């Protein structure tokens, strides 16, 4: 069934995936290079980070309504000794795993499981960490039937009022609403070579240039890199990666991510539940305010 992902692009089809261009190549290709790194076949996934930075991780399964979605991994454990609920999108590595994980494209039951995990953490006053890495929410018939849109909407709605510290980190591909559905944190971090976008460059190119081969142009136009998004004020912090990208040294990448998560959770730990809710509301209330009054005021 799943023969393609990323809106029609064959998985791992680029033979030169992740090989950054030679220095001196056009500046305009920079974003596309980052897209390639974000999708690099060896790039660490959520479970790679979990193994390295979460001690005594215990996975929890199921949405208590329909099923368990392997595209989302959730569970509790210790981050630098402190209890935390972690929810990550997992793409899977080899073919069998990729199929099992549905290439990291969650179905509604995945989002509902994630919300259940968040509510559980909130009930017992434990902070939440999410790791975003998905080409997008799964665009299939079954997902539509079970209310993909409703599941994502519900998460956006409920995340707004969670009374515990919440840090979201985009570790690879932040695929539109499918990523945002786990992404309404008090702090939003992005790994240096991750991307976060409203639409994949391929789909964007297919729509505006009617040619998915123009993805390189689209990647540039969409401003989807961590740097671009930090400039737009949509991301709080860029987490550095080892030279050349996280795939070159997974352990170090995990350490750097662990440091950033622990520090941000620590910053939030002094806030009361009301302050946390207020902080998150204000953050998203003022984010993306790119408009002006018609009269120029």
């Amino acid at each position: 069934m799943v023969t393609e992902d990323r809106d029609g692009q064959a998985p791992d089809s680029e033979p030169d995936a992740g090989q950054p261009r030679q220095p001196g190549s056009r500046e305009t290709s920079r974003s596309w290079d980052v897209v390639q790194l974000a999708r690099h076949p060896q790039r660490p996934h959520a479970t790679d980070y979990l193994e390295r930075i979460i001690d005594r991780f215990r996975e929890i399964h199921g949405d208590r309504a329909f099923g368990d979605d392997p595209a989302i991994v959730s569970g509790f454990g210790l981050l630098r000794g402190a209890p935390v609920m972690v929810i990550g999108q997992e793409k899977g590595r080899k073919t069998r795993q990729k199929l099992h994980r549905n290439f990291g494209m969650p179905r509604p039951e995945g989002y509902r499981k994630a919300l259940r995990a968040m509510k559980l953490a909130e009930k017992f006053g434990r902070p939440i960490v999410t790791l975003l890495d998905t080409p997008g929410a799964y665009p299939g018939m079954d997902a539509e039937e079970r209310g993909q849109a409703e599941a994502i909407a519900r998460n956006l709605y409920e995340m707004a009022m969670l009374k515990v510290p919440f840090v979201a980190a985009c570790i690879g591909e932040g695929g539109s609403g499918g990523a945002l559905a786990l992404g309404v944190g008090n702090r939003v971090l992005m790994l240096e070579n991750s991307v976060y976008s409203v639409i994949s460059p391929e789909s964007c190119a297919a729509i505006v240039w009617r040619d998915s081969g123009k993805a390189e142009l689209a990647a540039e136009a969409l401003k989807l890199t961590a740097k671009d998004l930090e400039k737009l004020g949509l991301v709080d912090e860029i987490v550095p990666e080892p030279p050349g990208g996280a795939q070159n040294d997974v352990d170090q990448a995990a350490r750097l991510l662990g440091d950033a998560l622990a520090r941000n959770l620590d910053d939030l730990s002094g806030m009361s539940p009301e302050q946390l809710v207020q902080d998150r509301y204000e953050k998203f209330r003022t984010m993306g305010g790119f408009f002006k009054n018609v009269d120029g005021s």
Partner: protein
Amino acid sequence: MPWFRRDQKPKRVHTEGLWIKCGSCSAPIWKKDLEAQSMVCAKCGFHFKINARDRLDMLFDNGKWEQIGGNLRTTNALRFNDRKPYEDRLHDAKQKTGLHDAILCGVGTLEGHEAVVCAMEYRFIGGSMGAVVGEELTRAAELAAADRKSLVIVSASGGARMMEGMVSLVQMAKVSAALKALDRAKVPYISVLTDPTTGGVTASFAMLGDLNVAEPGALIGFAGPRVIEQTISQKLPKGFQRSEFLLKHGMLDAVVPRTELKQYIGNALDFFLGPAS
């Protein structure tokens, strides 16, 4: 140039624009009749798309309402240029609709209840949501909460606006948070989904009503039908992602014909708040 010329144009009966062909059953309909029927085909019940202004006229009592907002325009944070600069698209859409963006909001009474009604304008870049739509809806929800006026949002949108990239995506979170605050204030919010409502709009405020109701036959979904067909490499069955399909799968409270919509919302507000004085 031919050596002969017709010196008279062929005789024509001037009925252009007076008759409209139904988009579903192809029956010719006298335009005035159609307008009297809230733009619903009397033969087959097909719901024509209507613009935001007509929608507010239709829902508010006696067609009387006062506009709120409407004075914001996007600052085009991404400087997005494709085959046609985004600024030009905005300009054209403004010429066509008379609006600064794909949203029109008003206050007035609906079946006697004080209400804020927001209608998306599909003719404005596919009703897509960027910074302005997100902000206007958020302000509308905040106003509704502060003044305890019921909120109705009529969706007609292809989703988030690609030309505003991530700026448009975060609007989903912003509007949803404002609706959660409205929920806490126990002020009613009714979401009306019309043809089409897809993508980031369905995946945020359109699915978050105390009641979610849709007009008959509207396309409603997260992924567009073409994307799904591409994913599963097969044709979708007829009626997939239409209102009736969503009703069957438990995603909607009701499918309500346009001609009964105002009354339906009025009944719901009566139930929530008690009869209007």
